[in-house]
């Protein structure tokens, strides 16, 4: 069955190529595990940037790297692919030391869609979150098509990964050759004419150091944070503040930033200040005037933050909500939080935003800057699997 497998062990995959491969796998899994819950957006962007960096490295390595890693070594045409697949089921089964033609196409597609995925991700990050290199260039509203492209590319890539994996298993079985092991060890059995490639330890060490440094830069803050000074992975754009507002509205609860409701809501709320959720505010007229000016200049209609944009686009024009916690977007974002959690002593009320959102005072409500008190910010893989298998919608 396995022709050309004369007894010689050669190094086919140099260390940087193997490292690229497995780090890419880790990032891919990490990104899928962290995409859904806003709390893990820092993990998600970490995975995304690393994925992007690895792909760029691979493109360079595909030109300047070792023999089997070079693109031109496995740039097979369609006829080769068909020949190869037909061969699998027929007599003429050829064995390739490097990538076989079908595998080669899978790899080019993986790299291509990987680039589409990460670049569209940068656009989503710039548009929806106003972070990353494209912050301020893309508006909230322009980000929707990029989000769609990002999701499409993610599912396509998942499909390609499955195909790639099935291909690897198939080829391993047909040729009785452990290809997964080869991607770890780097070596394969080959004919006597093939020679080993250079391992490139120095480049591998550099690659590894860069990734480790990035891990420390991205997550080191969690190790040094304190109760009073928690680590905020994301810092939002600084919003205008008003001492009058923070004093008058921050005595009984968090001084909700005016970006959380439209101007008409604030007007109505201040107009009926003697009937403020069962409280009478007893504010003086000139204070009310001052509050109104500030609230109108920073209301949700102006969409200064992602939260403002989303809140505002979720409130029908003929409605004037007085509760932030009754806007459909807010409800959707918090529907997965159990009643038991709301009743916890540290939280007590939906209006106690600051109990979970570390940047509630600043009004930025950044993803990843939230923790549910009394819970370690741990990822629950089982819950996640259940929700994915249950086809739960976003």
């Amino acid at each position: 069955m396995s022709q050309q497998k004369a007894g010689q062990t050669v190094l086919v995959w140099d260390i940087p190529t193997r490292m690229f491969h497995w780090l890419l796998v880790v990032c891919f899994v990490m990104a899928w595990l962290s995409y859904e819950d806003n709390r893990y957006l820092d993990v998600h962007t970490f995975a995304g940037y690393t994925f992007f960096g690895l792909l760029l490295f691979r493109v360079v390595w595909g030109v300047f790297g070792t023999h089997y890693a070079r693109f031109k070594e496995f740039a097979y045409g369609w006829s080769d692919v068909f020949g190869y697949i037909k061969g699998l089921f027929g007599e003429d089964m050829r064995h390739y030391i490097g990538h076989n033609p079908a595998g080669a196409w899978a790899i080019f597609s993986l790299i291509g869609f990987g680039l589409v995925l990460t670049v569209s991700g940068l656009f989503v990050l710039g548009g929806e979150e106003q972070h990353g290199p494209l912050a301020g260039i893309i508006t909230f509203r322009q980000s929707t098509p990029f989000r769609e492209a990002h999701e499409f590319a993610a599912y396509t890539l998942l499909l390609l990964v499955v195909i790639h994996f099935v291909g690897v298993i198939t080829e391993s079985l047909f040729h009785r050759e452990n290809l997964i092991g080869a991607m770890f060890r780097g070596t394969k059995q080959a004919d006597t004419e093939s020679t080993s490639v250079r391992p490139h330890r120095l480049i591998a060490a550099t690659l590894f150091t860069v990734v480790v440094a990035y891990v420390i830069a991205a997550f080191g803050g969690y190790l040094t944070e304190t109760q009073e000074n928690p680590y905020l992975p994301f810092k939002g754009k600084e919003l205008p503040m008003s001492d009058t507002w923070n004093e008058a509205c921050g005595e009984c609860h968090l001084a909700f930033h005016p970006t959380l409701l439209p101007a008409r809501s604030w007007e109505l709320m201040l107009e009926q200040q003697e009937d403020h959720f069962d409280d009478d505010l007893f504010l003086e007229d000139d204070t009310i005037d001052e509050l109104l000016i500030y609230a109108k200049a920073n209301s949700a209609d102006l969409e200064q933050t992602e939260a403002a944009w989303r809140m505002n686009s979720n409130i029908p024009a003929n409605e004037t909500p007085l509760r932030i916690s009754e806007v459909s977007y807010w409800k959707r974002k918090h529907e997965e939080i159990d009643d038991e959690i709301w009743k916890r002593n540290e939280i007590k009320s939906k209006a106690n935003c600051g109990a979970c959102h570390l940047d509630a005072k600043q009004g930025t409500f950044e993803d990843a800057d939230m923790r549910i008190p009394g819970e370690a910010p741990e990822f629950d893989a089982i819950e996640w699997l259940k929700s994915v298998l249950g086809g739960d919608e976003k």
Partner: protein
Amino acid sequence: MKSGFARVIAVVLFMMAAQVHAGAVDTLQQEYIAAGAGPFSAAKGKEMWIEKHLDAESGKQRNCQSCHTEDLSKPGKHAKTGKVIEPLAPSVNNERLTDIKFINKWFKRNCKWTLGRECTAQEKGDFLEYLRGL
């Protein structure tokens, strides 16, 4: 010499602070007396502080402890919003009972919320008499 001088300054500052402190409560109680109330009793203040009132709308009992909680030397927690309220006892929080406007505002709000009405001059005087001794 120098430290002696600093000590004098510290004592003067402390006395001034204490003066302001006594000032706000005294001024308010003077006002209440002028309105026909008095004399004031800390015991009565404490009794009212604990006394429960049924809120018709929510069906729940309310008292001053609903937010300030039982131990006034410790931080309280707003009954509805969960926000932490700094301790009310002037002995642990020297900013308490120093600002007339602030006290007035909170009497208005808290009496209305807890009792469903404004407090009388007599009641306010008793509350202050109780709180200042904490």
